[in-house]
């Protein structure tokens, strides 16, 4: 058992640059190291999170009172479109890729991604896609047809300025980056695992990202095809989606949602992976039902392609189609529910440490379940007919995106923060952020369920002073302001403790997976010199148990919150 394995090092981590010297900005721009690229993804995500959040606050200010005229209707349309597009494509996706390219190689005991340059390519495509999208503000106006950009609103006769062209180009470019990075991740996981780590004993985060990459590769082409057709419509006067000239508006909806619904799972599955790591480490227990967590992810990925038309119940597809997609959508609740019970089983009887990371994970369990339950209700198409395009939808999707994805990402952020920066945050500041964010979030969106049920339509820039409309909207706006404040706290925490927090050591949480086995935090450019042959999804924990970790476990004290 004592045999160790030398980890191969890529030929030139910094082409043409010295390895050890600090090169300032140049070091970042020409970086091909997976850790630097991971950090750039995360910083990009945070930047767009602040912008997208600011747009949301402006929207909420406009909606705070009835018959408000803070924003003109055209601007309101542009803001909610940009808010949604930004949050999905330039916050959630880069955050997921950031954690993936940073931690997948580390967790499987590799020194680099399979294709380091392709990795850099993926990042820069994503970033410039985002910048191109935002350039639309300077080029006559931002896109204004909603993030799913329905035809024929996305056609020239309804949206004549260049916003939607920038939308299409920006998403095409960042989509190419996403496809490249997904291919990179799959090849890395297949070929760069430390000998002894079998595919069926990957750490769950790696497994989820791996499955997710296949899902992404299957879903994004549909968006790219739709965007290509749309660009042909707008630039060359084709008539794919122009109903007046024999095109079909419905075709856009099909193509978009064949991408769009898998996309929802693309942004949640990696968060599931992070949570699976967080629940284990902070409950001091191995995951309850590893095989079920792993297999249910595959089930979700497959079912994801059979449910897209539940976004289209209201277009009149007929009862057969509606019933099929209704049933399929409810079916997908099963593997998701399985996971919730796996996590509950993991916590049950564990020695729980309430770190900021674990708090977000527990909040996730509650909030995501609420989002899941409202989703199941929605899958019943008569209910959908009643509630479609109301604030109930807004409440549901924010419960799964913020309560689900963002909570998961934040749990992952606070879990891995000591590894990425080498420093610990002050747990008290972390708790402040947690409560501000969680209370703000629930105030903002819980009341929107009720607003939707009493008939307030979404995407309308103002509303009449009907009973409860004003009060509930005001509560929602107040909650949004709390979230805005919490966003500033988050930026402060990352800035302050990333630079001058207490040194974290290599393994502050006494964790289970190989990223904590590096010699320093943050890991040196060459992640590992050599490692014992790894076994199982808790390889590092098993090394510590059998004393193969070089005494790291003894020198590390568990951080008690």
């Amino acid at each position: 058992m004592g045999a160790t394995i030398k980890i191969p090092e890529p030929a030139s981590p910094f082409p043409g640059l010295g390895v050890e010297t600090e090169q300032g900005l140049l070091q970042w721009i020409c970086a091909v190291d997976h850790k630097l690229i991971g950090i750039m993804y995360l910083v990009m995500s945070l930047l767009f999170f602040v912008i997208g959040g600011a747009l949301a606050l402006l929207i909420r200010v406009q909606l705070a009172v009835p018959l408000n005229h803070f924003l003109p209707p055209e601007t309101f349309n542009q803001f909610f479109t940009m808010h949604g597009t930004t949050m999905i494509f330039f916050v959630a996706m880069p955050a997921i890729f950031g954690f993936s390219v940073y931690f997948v190689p580390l967790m499987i005991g590799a020194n680099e991604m399979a294709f380091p340059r392709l990795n850099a390519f993926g990042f820069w495509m994503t970033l410039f896609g985002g910048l191109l999208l935002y350039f639309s503000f300077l080029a006559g106006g931002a896109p204004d047809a909603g993030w799913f950009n329905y035809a024929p609103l996305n056609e020239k006769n309804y949206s004549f300025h260049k916003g939607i062209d920038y939308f299409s180009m920006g998403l095409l470019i960042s989509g190419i980056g996403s496809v490249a990075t997904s291919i990179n991740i799959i090849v890395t996981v297949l070929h760069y695992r430390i000998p002894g780590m079998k595919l069926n004993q990957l750490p769950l985060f790696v497994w989820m990202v791996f499955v997710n990459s296949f899902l992404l590769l299957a879903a994004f082409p549909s968006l790219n095809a739709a965007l290509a057709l749309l660009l042909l419509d707008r630039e060359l006067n084709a008539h794919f989606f122009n109903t007046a000239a024999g095109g079909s508006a419905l075709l856009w909806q099909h193509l978009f949602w064949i991408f769009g619904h898998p996309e929802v799972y693309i942004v949640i599955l990696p968060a599931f992976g992070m949570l699976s790591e967080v629940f284990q480490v902070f409950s001091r227990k191995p995951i309850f039902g590893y095989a079920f967590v792993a297999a249910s992810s595959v089930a979700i990925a497959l079912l994801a392609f059979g449910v897209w038309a539940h976004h289209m119940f209201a277009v009149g597809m007929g009862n057969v189609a509606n019933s099929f997609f209704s049933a399929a959508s409810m079916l997908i609740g099963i593997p998701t529910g399985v996971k919730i019970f796996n996590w509950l089983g993991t916590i049950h009887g564990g020695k729980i440490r309430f770190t900021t990371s674990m708090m977000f994970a527990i909040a996730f369990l509650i909030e995501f379940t609420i989002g899941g339950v409202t989703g199941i209700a929605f899958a019943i198409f008569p209910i959908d007919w009643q509630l479609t395009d109301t604030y109930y939808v807004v409440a549901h999707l924010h419960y799964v995106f913020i309560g689900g994805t963002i909570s998961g990402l934040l749990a992952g952020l606070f879990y891995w923060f000591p590894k990425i920066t080498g420093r610990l945050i002050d747990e008290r500041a972390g708790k402040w952020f947690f409560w501000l964010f969680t209370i703000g979030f629930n105030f903002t969106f819980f009341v929107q369920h009720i607003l939707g049920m009493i008939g307030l339509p979404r995407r309308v820039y103002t509303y009449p002073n009907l009973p409860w409309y004003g009060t509930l909207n005001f509560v929602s706006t107040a909650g949004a302001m709390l979230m805005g404040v919490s966003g500033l706290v988050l930026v402060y925490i990352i800035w302050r403790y990333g630079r001058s927090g207490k040194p974290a050591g290599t393994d502050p949480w006494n964790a289970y997976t190989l990223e904590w086995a590096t010699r320093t935090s943050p890991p040196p450019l060459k992640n590992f010199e050599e490692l014992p042959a790894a076994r199982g999804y808790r390889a590092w924990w098993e090394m510590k148990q059998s004393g193969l970790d070089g005494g790291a476990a003894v020198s590390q004290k568990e951080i008690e919150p």
Partner: protein
Amino acid sequence: MIHLVIYTEAFFFLCLIMSFIYMAYNAGFAPRELSRLDIRSAGVYTVVLIASSFTLHFAEMGYSRGKPAALKAWLIVTIVLGAVFLAGQGTEYGRLIGDNITMNGSVFGASFYTLTGFHGLHVVIGLIILLIVLILAFLGDSRSAIRTIAPYWHFVDVVWLFVFTVVYVLPQFSSI
């Protein structure tokens, strides 16, 4: 890796083909324009493209048996066949545009040019890569780039079989 590229590309073409079917097999799709397509010449060019898959396979066999002369010769034949296919597509486009079937004229034009155009673009990209492999072969490079490009080229050919079936063959049997 190339298999993953093919996997994701396959979904892209699936979407384009489904879009064509969605438009073409609906009522109101101009039968007059459909009848302008020339299945005979397209059939000949289809055979040419499929033949290029076989010649590329011979080139690959030449490579793996360590016969650089066979590799170069079959590569050249493959590239010529691919170029002939593109030329055929070009003449078809020219004839259709002469008949006033254009991108912005009708839904038929738009979906026809988009589907066959994206396929043609993939043939062009394949030809560029094959040219690079050929130049490398003449420079004495012995790396296995041909093994990477071969699955892609076969994929592009198989996609054309589906496109040909959907665009040229099936409408022959329909009542529109």
